[in-house]
């Protein structure tokens, strides 16, 4: 087999491996998430949660691989975010958006797969 063809075969096999691994991802918030948070944070909108997701992906991944929200109990997220908010340059309002997104998705992680 020629080198170029061998390389192509290897690339294809490796690509398939990576693609097969591409199962879970960070899900977007839903209207139900806003409802779920209403008792604790009244007035939280779907837009707030989307902003929280966007901030989480952009600011937090500069320091470490992101954690799927379900990997920590919902009550742990405010403290975890507070520990790193300064390094991630999150302002107070941005910190709140990130926390609400993570708490909402972590609270729902048991019933909805994170995809």
């Amino acid at each position, binding site marked *: 087999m020629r080198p170029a063809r061998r390389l192509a075969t290897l690339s294809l096999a490796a690509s398939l491996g*990576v693609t097969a*691994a591409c199962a879970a991802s*960070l899900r977007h918030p839903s209207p139900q998430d806003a409802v779920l948070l209403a008792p604790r944070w009244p007035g939280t909108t779907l837009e707030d949660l989307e902003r929280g997701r966007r901030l989480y992906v952009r600011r937090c991944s500069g320091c470490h*691989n992101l954690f799927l929200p379900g990997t920590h109990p919902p009550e742990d997220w405010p403290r975890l975010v507070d520990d790193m908010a300064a390094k991630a340059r999150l302002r107070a309002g941005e910190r709140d958006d990130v926390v609400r997104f993570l708490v909402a998705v972590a609270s729902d992680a048991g019933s909805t797969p994170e995809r």
Partner: protein
Amino acid sequence: MRHAFRAFLILALSAAVAAASERHFTYTYESAVLRPGARELEPWNTFRLGQSDFYSRLDTRLEAELGLTDRLQTSLYLNLKAETADTPQGRSSSTELEGISSEWKMKLSDPVADRAGVALYGELSAGPSEVELEGKLILDKRVGRFLGALNLVAEHEWSFEEPETEREKTFELDAAGCWFLTSRLTAGLELRSHTVVPPQGEPTRSALFLGPTVSYARQSWWVAASVLPQLRALAGASDGHLDLVEHERVEVRVLFGLEF
């Protein structure tokens, strides 16, 4: 000794978040970029052992990285080479400054938040005797404790030699996977396929490497190391099933990163 081992275990198993932009592999890049304003110093050392006859070489690169935006980072490298080889005139050793490199990396998607992490990478190297242009497509994915990454690399080199400039193309496929033993410590395997297409009239040489890789990260520093023996030549075998003309028998690479 037992206390030292226990102290090491406690350090290794502590569950705090690891360093910024740590690398978990030595050849295979991941899509992560430094956060805006963050700076990192990365000394690289690659030991290349066992080409035709006697041969050893140490490549050292000193890299300074800077995060520009949430998606873009840049780096500047200083490249040094120390080489020992048998030549018709006898054994010779030399050390030379190969040149400097400028690297740009743009992250397009995230390995956890999205289906796959994707990044584009470009590097321009220039030295007294050659210029290189390198492009890389980076894919990676983190699923639970598993991290996988794949790079497709193409490189074009111009060597300024008398009487004319020589051109050489290189194609590389790097694939790697590791398991997070703790949030700081990983162990895995790295595969490297490296193909050199020299100027017309010379044979293409291609080799496949596979070996273990480990990494460890703290908040402000990280280290990654690999030992990649050549498994076989894919083209241009010169010594049994290996190519020892263009490639080495073993490559050992150690990377260190320090935030500053």
